[in-house]
């Protein structure tokens, strides 16, 4: 486990892959595997990492607080200007479900498979939240896979997109209409979304509600200091504690096994299917659109929740295909939809799985 911890720290520092998370996770993994594991528990007394785990992960507090911070960071403006982009946030959740099916074929039970599939939400807090409810023993590898592959989006998405699209499709231009968004819409949206989610999938309310609470603080226009605190101090502090606490769940007896390797492999599969789902959905929509209204299918890939990285990757690809092709705002609209889609998908999984297996 020392080697695993060192690799995560190396990836964080040398490759700058999600350094704010992989570095604390790597160090936590080393700490918890030292002789006697004093940081976890010693002579009947809880160590500081176990205190953090019980107070922040076991009761899902840290993911919820992270969502408040993320909500305060999201600007739904690009989505309001191109509301159709919201459907890519649904299509790109396909990887969650495809991976869940594959996981059951590999012998995992439904709750474990659902937790592994949620890696495809490309959304660390949702993955932690679901895994903590359904498969606590798999929390370590699922968290590491989720955050690692989020950092690898620039490497994972381009080859999948190129495989599924022609050069001509990747060169499609999309007209962007600059228009204002009513302030009351920005304020009422987080409230209405929370209420609808509460009726459709009540179990998703902690996830959706905290995200939308953060967004409401941002959009209210009267809580600028709270908004800045959520986006900065709260986000950094909880990320710090979340990372090292996740690392503490990577004890050798639970982490060094074949399941971990399979989970890491399936995490990659989930991201590939997410990307493919979004791109293929865009291509299907294009079948029904007139020639001058076609969607650049790369936009579909932005429906994953890795925000804003995926949007930037797709804009870079569009510019590489044809200099001056700007699809960034559409890409960001699709990308923020992925934030919504991933937590709704997480809520669906949390609601449906217990109906079948209790």
């Amino acid at each position, binding site marked *: 486990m020392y080697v695993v911890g060192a690799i995560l720290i190396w990836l964080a520092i040398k490759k700058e892959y999600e350094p704010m998370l992989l570095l604390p996770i790597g160090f936590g993994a080393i700490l918890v595997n030292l002789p006697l594991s004093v940081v976890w528990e010693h002579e009947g007394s809880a160590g500081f990492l176990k205190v953090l785990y019980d107070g922040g992960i076991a009761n899902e507090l840290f993911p919820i607080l992270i969502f408040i911070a993320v909500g305060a960071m999201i600007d739904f403006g690009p989505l*309001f200007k191109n509301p159709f982009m919201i*459907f890519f946030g649904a299509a790109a*959740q396909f990887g969650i479900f*495809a991976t869940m099916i594959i996981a059951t074929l590999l012998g995992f039970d*439904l709750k474990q498979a659902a937790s592994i599939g949620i890696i495809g939400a490309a959304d660390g807090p949702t993955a932690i939240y679901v895994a903590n409810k359904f498969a606590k023993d798999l929390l370590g590898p699922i968290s590491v896979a989720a955050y690692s592959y989020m950092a690898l989006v620039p490497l994972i998405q381009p080859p999948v997109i190129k495989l599924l699209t022609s050069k001509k499709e990747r060169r499609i231009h999309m007209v962007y209409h600059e228009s204002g*968004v009513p302030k009351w*819409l920005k304020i009422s949206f987080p409230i209405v979304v929370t209420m609808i989610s509460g009726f459709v999938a009540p179990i998703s309310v902690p996830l959706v509600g905290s995200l939308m609470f953060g967004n409401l603080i941002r959009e209210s226009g009267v809580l600028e200091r709270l908004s800045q605190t959520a986006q900065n101090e709260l986000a950094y502090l909880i990320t710090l504690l979340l990372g090292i606490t996740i690392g503490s769940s990577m004890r050798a007896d639970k982490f060094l096994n074949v399941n971990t390797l399979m989970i890491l492999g399936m995490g990659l599969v989930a991201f590939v299917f997410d990307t493919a789902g979004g791109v293929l959905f865009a291509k299907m929509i294009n079948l029904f659109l007139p020639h001058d209204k076609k969607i650049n299918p790369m936009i579909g890939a932005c429906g994953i929740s890795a925000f804003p990285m995926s949007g930037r990757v797709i804009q870079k690809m569009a510019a590489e295909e044809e200099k001056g092709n700007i699809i960034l705002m559409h890409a960001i609209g699709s990308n923020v939809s992925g934030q919504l889609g991933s937590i709704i998908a997480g809520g669906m999984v949390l609601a*449906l799985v217990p109906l079948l297996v209790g």
Partner: protein
Amino acid sequence: MDSLMYNLKNASTTVQALAVTAGGLIGVFATLAAFFLIIWLSVKLGGKKA
């Protein structure tokens, strides 16, 4: 509905995963479609800009 749930509860894990997939994808699309309608109607009917 009851018999469907009974059959699914006694089905193989993979069949259960397929059922969750169908329900999950329909749920995600339906929920986001509701959000789409809200945004679209608000922008169309709202008029007043920030």
